[in-house]
């Protein structure tokens, strides 16, 4: 087991290193440098090339690419993420503000979509071939075909504008600060996100449950005269659910992608809408840091999944050696 984890870590760190280098090079290819962003358009006409060079030297921008990358990387590891070009706010401050909002939205959506997806998938598997199963399958297809932002817009129009049940967007209203005041704001975005992610979980739970139901221990349980619901729930469902737990990790990239656009639609002040704003404003340091953070999260999640799968299923780790 230790060797297996060591092997995975041996891939994990070089991967992160290479990606950070590539992303930093991408930043280098983007037009302009830090100095050109600091100078306001009015000043640009009066400033001379020598002054610009002096500024570059002062900020260390005349050093070689590799040196600058190394400085950036070492300060990044120490937790200094640099500054955003829009307003010069420290990126760590922006992160501290936006990450909790995104986590809140994503976890709620993950919770609902997993519960909904698993139960619908199991129902679908138990009633295989029936009308319920077929309509759930078609509904699942529709779920992956409708653009999430369009679904979000329709939900806003219906529940926020027409029926006025819920707010149009945002996370906190001014002067409303208790947990209870915040619930109406999270309902729409999290449910829309959850519904969009339910389809994948449902499909997975269905096939996993069908797999389990065909196994011999289910036949044994039935032949003992156990009531059908006990067979399905206690014996089938419990076994089928183990890979579904792993699925939660696999759905992370999907969750990130979905939450990015949904946050924008609902003006949710999270990391996704911040990312979109930074791409729009060509705020490269922020774009770079946020995308690297996402890569770090995805790679860590897949590392954790690999280790978990190896813990559950010894064939995985033995097969590698």
């Amino acid at each position, binding site marked *: 087991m230790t060797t297996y984890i060591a092997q995975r870590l041996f891939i994990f760190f070089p*991967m992160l290193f290479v990606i950070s280098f590539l992303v930093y090079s991408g930043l280098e290819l983007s037009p302009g440098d830090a100095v050109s962003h600091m100078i306001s358009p009015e000043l640009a006409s009066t400033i001379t090339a020598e002054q610009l060079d002096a500024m570059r030297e002062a900020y260390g921008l005349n050093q070689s690419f590799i040196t600058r990358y190394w400085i950036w990387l070492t300060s990044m590891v120490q937790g200094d993420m640099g500054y955003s070009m829009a307003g010069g706010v420290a990126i760590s401050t922006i992160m501290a503000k936006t990450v909790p909002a995104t986590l809140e939205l994503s976890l709620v959506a993950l919770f609902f979509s997993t519960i909904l997806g698993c139960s619908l998938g199991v129902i679908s598997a138990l009633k295989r071939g029936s009308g319920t199963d077929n309509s759930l399958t078609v509904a699942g*297809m529709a779920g*992956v*075909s409708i653009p999430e932002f369009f679904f979000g817009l329709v939900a806003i*129009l219906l529940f926020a504008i027409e029926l006025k049940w819920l707010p149009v967007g945002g996370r906190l209203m001014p002067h409303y600060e208790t947990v209870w005041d915040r619930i109406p704001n999270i309902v729409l975005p999290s449910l829309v996100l959850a519904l969009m992610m339910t389809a994948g979980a449902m499909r997975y739970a269905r096939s996993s449950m069908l797999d389990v139901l065909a196994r011999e221990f289910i036949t044994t349980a039935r032949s003992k005269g156990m009531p059908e619901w006990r067979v399905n729930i206690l014996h089938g469902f419990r076994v089928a659910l183990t890979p579904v737990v792993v699925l939660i990790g696999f759905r*992370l990239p999907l969750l*990130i*992608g979905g939450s990015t656009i949904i946050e924008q639609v609902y003006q949710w002040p999270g990391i996704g809408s911040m990312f979109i704003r930074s791409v*729009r404003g060509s705020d490269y340091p922020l774009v770079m840091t946020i*995308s690297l953070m996402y890569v770090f999260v995805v790679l860590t999640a897949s590392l954790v999944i690999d280790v978990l799968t190896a813990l559950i299923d010894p064939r995985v780790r033995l097969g590698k050696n």
Partner: protein
Amino acid sequence: MAQTSLDKKFDQIRKREEEKTFSVKKRSRIVSKFLNNRLAVVGLIIFTIIILASLFAPLLSPYDPMRVDLRSMRQAPSFDHWFGTDSTGRDVFTRVLFGGRVSIFIGLGSAILSAVVGIAVGCYAGYKGGWIDVIALRVSEIFMSFPQIILVLLLVSITGQSLFNLMAIFILTGWGGMYRLARARMLSLREEEYVQALRSFGLSTFTICYKHMLPNALSPIMVNITLSTAMFILTEAGLSFLGLGVPLNIPTWGNILNVAQDILVLQNYWWMWGPVGIVISVFVLCVNFIGDGLRDSTDPSQQG
């Protein structure tokens, strides 16, 4: 001798042979299985209608998708303007038709091109193995460590927005999946006896992997092309909705939807964004149905 059921079956077959009813049925098993899948057929029909409608857009609509007509702005759907007009008086139905051209071109084009790249690399690397395979695998892993939309947005911010850039970015982010699929198929085909036979005949590596092995790997690849077409169309719509996809002067489905970011449009002018959203959803749903039908009809493990 008593006639067994097998004899009866054989008699039936002989009878049909004599009546020459066999020659009528020429459809392959894959085609007939696909045609038996009702959803896939419905999907294919609507898919064809939408594509034809976009191709022949100038014949179907008297309006110019770009022409601004301020006298007829923000009109609700009527007989003259089926989907109404937008804030600058352009006919929304015409824009949806012309937008379909670009959106479908981007989706289908990127899916096919990324498949070409993925297959070209995957076939060779999967068959040959060695350092080429190791490098390609690592490179595809790098691309797959990003959540797709994040990588696309990152690349958009580096390269800037244009139709060409967007397709290049889609190919760059999409080839990895195709590569892995082609590679996995090649790895299992590599051990087949006919491949060993070809090798012992002294055929070149290129001939073996592209001419003899690739056709046996095509059906899962076809399914994957369909499904990634759906995905690319959705991604394009999402990006253009955010104003980060195709430049706004080119009508695409996503760009038409872009106006819905304005809460006033969302509230008062549903026809500017509702119909086009439904068209995208229906089109992508059809593509997914086709993909599913293809998978069911070509998957040998499901043939019975």
